[in-house]
């Protein structure tokens, strides 16, 4: 299954997955308490990788409750039992919510089906919430964690105008968004609005504008996202040799 994952993915998808995992990992500060939730293969790979590179003292928190686990392999489900393996203590999801409410959760990674110009995200409904065109899964812990964690980083593996509208159809969660990582760029939130911080190599400003549903304003200040270094690529491969991160693109 895992070998098929890697071999079945196109060069383009593999490059996007590697970039996004590495770029997410760069947001982790050494010594930080870091959390990922359900359906979070990319942040899981990024967190395991960061522990072996620039953030050896991060504290890894997750839904099964294993603190600083050493999973024998990265599971396709990011609440699976491997995230208890080698853990030093047991700290439940309920306790993680409480920790965040007390202002002590450092960084959380959260995904969105829509992420809008304000950095708000939607994982609830596409269309009219009373009669939705699409019922999405729900935002899991995001409505709690976005406003209470010290920092959050959002990600979405699809960057198109529908996914990045001026306003979400429904705001599942809003709050302390530091950055948004996509296959095309990295946004930062400045004065309540997303601004392009860096554009990934090979992406033109025109292509980025065409793929985004809100006005990007002046892109002259945006620089090019530094490509993953050889050391980062090696650390990512060591952290996620099976390519579980690719699952987010299938």
């Amino acid at each position: 299954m895992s070998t098929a994952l890697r071999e079945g993915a196109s060069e383009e998808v593999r490059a996007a997955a590697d970039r996004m995992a590495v770029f997410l990992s760069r947001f982790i500060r050494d010594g930080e308490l870091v959390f990922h939730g359900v359906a979070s293969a990319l942040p899981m790979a990024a967190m395991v990788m960061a522990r072996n590179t620039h953030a050896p003292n991060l504290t890894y928190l997750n839904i099964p409750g294993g603190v600083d686990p050493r999973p024998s392999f990265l599971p396709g489900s990011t609440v699976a039992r491997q995230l208890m393996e080698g853990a030093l203590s047991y700290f439940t999801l309920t306790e993680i919510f409480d920790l965040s409410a007390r202002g002590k959760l450092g960084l959380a990674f959260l995904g969105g089906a829509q992420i809008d110009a304000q950095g708000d995200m939607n994982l609830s409904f596409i269309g009219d919430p009373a009669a939705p065109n699409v019922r999405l899964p729900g935002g899991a812990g995001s409505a709690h964690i976005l406003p209470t964690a010290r920092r959050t980083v959002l990600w979405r593996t699809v960057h198109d105008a529908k996914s990045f509208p001026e306003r979400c159809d429904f705001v599942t969660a809003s709050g302390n968004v530091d950055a948004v990582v996509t296959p095309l760029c990295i946004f930062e939130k400045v004065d309540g609005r997303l601004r392009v911080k860096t554009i990934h190599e090979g992406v033109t400003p025109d292509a980025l504008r065409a793929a985004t549903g809100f006005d990007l304003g002046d892109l002259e200040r945006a620089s090019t996202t530094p490509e993953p270094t050889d050391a980062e690529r090696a650390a990512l491969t060591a952290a996620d040799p099976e390519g579980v991160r690719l699952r987010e693109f299938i």
Partner: protein
Amino acid sequence: MAGKIMSLTEAAALVQDGDLLALGGNALTRIPAAFVRELARRRREGLRLVKTAGAYDVDLLCAAGAVAQTQTGYVGFENLFGLAPSYRRGVEEGSVRAVEHACSTVIAGLRASAYGLPSQPVAGLDGSDVAAHTGFRQVKDPYTGESVYMVPGIRPRFAILHVTYADAEGNARIEGGAFEDVLMSRAAESVILTAERIEETAFFVEKPDRTAVPAFMVQAVVHAPGGARPGGCHPFYDIDEDAVGAYLDSASGAESLRAHLDSWEERDYAGSAAVSGDVV
């Protein structure tokens, strides 16, 4: 020795149409899969489900037309298979009412009941449409004047928990992540356990601090080895992705769903209904 041990069919018969059920486990881990399959076989209707993050369990009951309402933070098959098709269809067609929650508000509602309170203040939700959509009201804290959202209590008729070990009286130990199972047991009016293994009571006396659910809270115990499949259950088995995929292929039609339930019947009934202590 029989204690509260009963067959899967007898235990499922305790659930009435329209009941509010809290389902233990999380996503595809340690879910009460055999029990929900039995509810589907018994053609239960109008069930209301409570769970932080659901997947196969919530979707299968939606596919079976057994669900009127869900109170969940997330229902989906993660990066493995994406959206939950029958849940999605039920909500979009209007047969399933999705009460939008964050996982934290599901926990808050369960906490209210566990604490014996009508509602529970909860942090977060600022800037989210969830509170207005679901109708969570704000009050002022009488001491500081700070505004805080209150989540109404959630009192399930049963917490349905698939546990690693239980004795015949209903003492239960959970290996691996317990998720919200312990809270659910305290919030619910009563508890139905399905268990991978039935142990002698002495097993629990050895380490009482590891007993997550004490027997006095439990109404029924079902021996259900493999009862979380196709989900995983520590330390015995992992998620069976192929079997989850097979379910998703079958969930679109009544006949194929029936075939799915039939294909699991023998395994679901493999537990010993009259268990002696040495049966594990």
